[in-house]
């Protein structure tokens, strides 16, 4: 009788890594590696806006203030919505071979159901945690979203967790046209909440690693050693928007106003 062993998951712990660098790394690992990866980044260096793959700045951002305050805007390779992240944000990304997670079908709802139950373990005992529509919430206040990319045999699910946030930063984001039903037309400050009100930072990180460890055999990998895991060229979709693009967006907003 053979004993089935848990599949291997490489764990990369980062701290304060710029989100653009983190996203480049994730895209590289998704496309050019065949291993499973869990990346945890404890905060990013500067406040940065991160939009989903098809995000349009004129629709999602208050472009004027963004340009004036020189906030970097990134378009990431996964779908989903727009966030503004900073040093207090916690990032957790999971890249998996679909065959290593056989209970998960490679489409969004299935991936979300799996991640929802994984974080359910992390937040066990914390009142009100659930995956609601596509968001991680306490009660009906969102503290983390959901973004994925699904390619042939692999998928990535990553989240930026709102540990704490600066209300002023939220002002750079417009109310998106597509919102979950439970949002009920609340604006940002009444719709989101701070994770720090519910769990200790180190607690969250360790419990997340432990929850992932319940399904995978974890191995810590240093950033310097990544090259040996991901070789060859790959499509690079994640990028920083140029000033020209932002100015164009502002012009188009002004036209349609």
């Amino acid at each position, binding site marked *: 009788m053979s004993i089935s062993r848990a599949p291997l998951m490489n764990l990369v712990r980062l701290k304060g890594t710029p989100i653009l660098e983190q996203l480049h790394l994730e895209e590289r690992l998704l496309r050019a590696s065949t291993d499973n990866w869990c990346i945890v980044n404890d905060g990013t260096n500067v406040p940065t806006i991160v939009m989903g793959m098809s995000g349009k700045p004129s629709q999602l951002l208050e472009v004027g203030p963004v340009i004036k305050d020189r906030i970097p805007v990134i378009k990431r390779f996964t779908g*989903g919505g727009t966030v503004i992240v900073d040093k207090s944000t916690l990032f957790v990304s999971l890249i998996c071979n679909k065959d290593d997670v056989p209970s998960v079908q490679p*489409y969004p*709802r299935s991936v979300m159901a799996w991640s929802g139950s994984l974080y359910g373990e992390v937040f066990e005992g914390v009142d009100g945690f659930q995956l609601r529509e596509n968001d991680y919430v306490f*009660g*009906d206040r969102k503290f983390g979203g959901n973004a994925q990319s699904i*390619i*042939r045999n692999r998928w990535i699910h990553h989240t930026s967790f709102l540990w704490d946030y600066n209300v002023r930063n939220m002002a750079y984001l417009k109310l998106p046209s597509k919102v979950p*039903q439970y949002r009920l*037309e609340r604006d940002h400050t*009444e719709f989101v909440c701070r994770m720090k009100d519910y769990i200790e930072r180190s607690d969250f990180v360790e419990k997340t690693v432990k929850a992932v460890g319940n399904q995978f055999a974890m191995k810590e990998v240093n950033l310097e050693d990544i090259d040996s895991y991901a070789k060859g060229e790959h499509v690079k979709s994640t990028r920083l928007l140029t000033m020209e693009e932002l100015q164009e967006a502002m012009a188009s907003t002004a036209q349609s106003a």
Partner: protein
Amino acid sequence: MIARRIWRSHRFLRPFSSSSVCAPPLLAPYHSQSFASPKSRPFLVPCLSLMKWCEGGGGSRSWFSNEAMSIDSDAGGGFIDVPLAQTGEGIAECELLKWFVKEGDPVEEFQPLCEVQSDKATIEITSRFKGKVALISHAPGDIIKVGETLVKLAVEDSHDALLVSSDTPGNVEPICSQPKLDTLVGALSTPAVRTLAKDLGIDINLVTGSGKDGRVLKEDVLQFSGQKQNVTDSAPSDNPFIRGDSVSTSFEDQIVPLRGFNRAMVKTMTMATKVPHFHFVEEINCDALVKLKHFFKEHNTDSTVKHTFLPTLIKSLSMALTKYPYVNGCFNEESLEIILKGSHNIGVAMATEHGLVVPNIKNVQSLSLLEITREMSRLQHLATNNKLSPEDVTGGTITLSNIGAIGGKFGSPLLNLPEVAIIALGRIEKVPKFKEDGSVYPASTMMVRI
């Protein structure tokens, strides 16, 4: 019989994930590698083709099926429509982000063709077959409905493309004899025109295009549907395009999507109707209440406070709840338990221009009348401006619905789940009453429905 059953089940399943049906597949149908695993792929795909061929129709292609595939030629090679397959329950459309191939490119099996985005995920769509890109139907930025063709591939080996295996019933035969190349490639048209044709139930490939390069235009589709209507004596359709020559545009239906509170309200009220309701109606003599309100008004020192009946009624309710705690309970359907709530968090239904909302006043048992009045005023103000916080609208233990405020005698309220009681208050009216000796006296009364 079987085909009909399958058709029915297909129509039921169409908007939902294909993983809900399991049956042995007849032959592995076309599917994108990135989507549901083989065992969740139902047999409705091959059976759909079975149906299509049973119909005996000429190239009526199904644009709706999860992984519909059509073969237009039984000669050595063939063309395959690659549709946007189901990406998950309820996802009806995706945005096309980019192509990895262009027309004329060779493709290998499992080679990525394009990337699409649904709400939360970017998804790569890979080719099931080896072949060549014949026709790209959409441009980046287009919104594509599930089931619509993304790209047409020319495959060399017809065995690859053949959908149904040889052990299916004998009425399966490729129908098209010798299609011309332009028919094979399919009608040239924009996605909007294709959608119109689909809505009208028309196979766009049967429509003669009057546009450039034989492009099918909107007018062509409309004209075709008009001809079809004349020829076939079909049941009257309620599609306005087909109804007669001149369509009146001045009395059109207007679709109002429900949003916000209204949307939430529909859902919660629908759930409430599933609960058995018991109604009790009584008339309450409110003379004393009227006097009290008058007294407060006369002796009001704070101009920001406006005195109404409601705070007193709220406080009275709280005092009654102290005597009858079961009425201040919450029912847990799963465990069949009633939780007797310690706090009296009395909800007050408010009609705002954004919809019906029920904020509640917390811990009424510990509040004075003045405190209740102030809190009511605060909640009313927030509700009117659509600024209620989740804290304000959750945690209620019983609800008051003040129908009287808008002028009714009677209301028939629905429970605000998971509460177990709701009280509708009618308007306070002065009515004549009879004493024992037959003389008439006025009384202020209020109809109350619990």
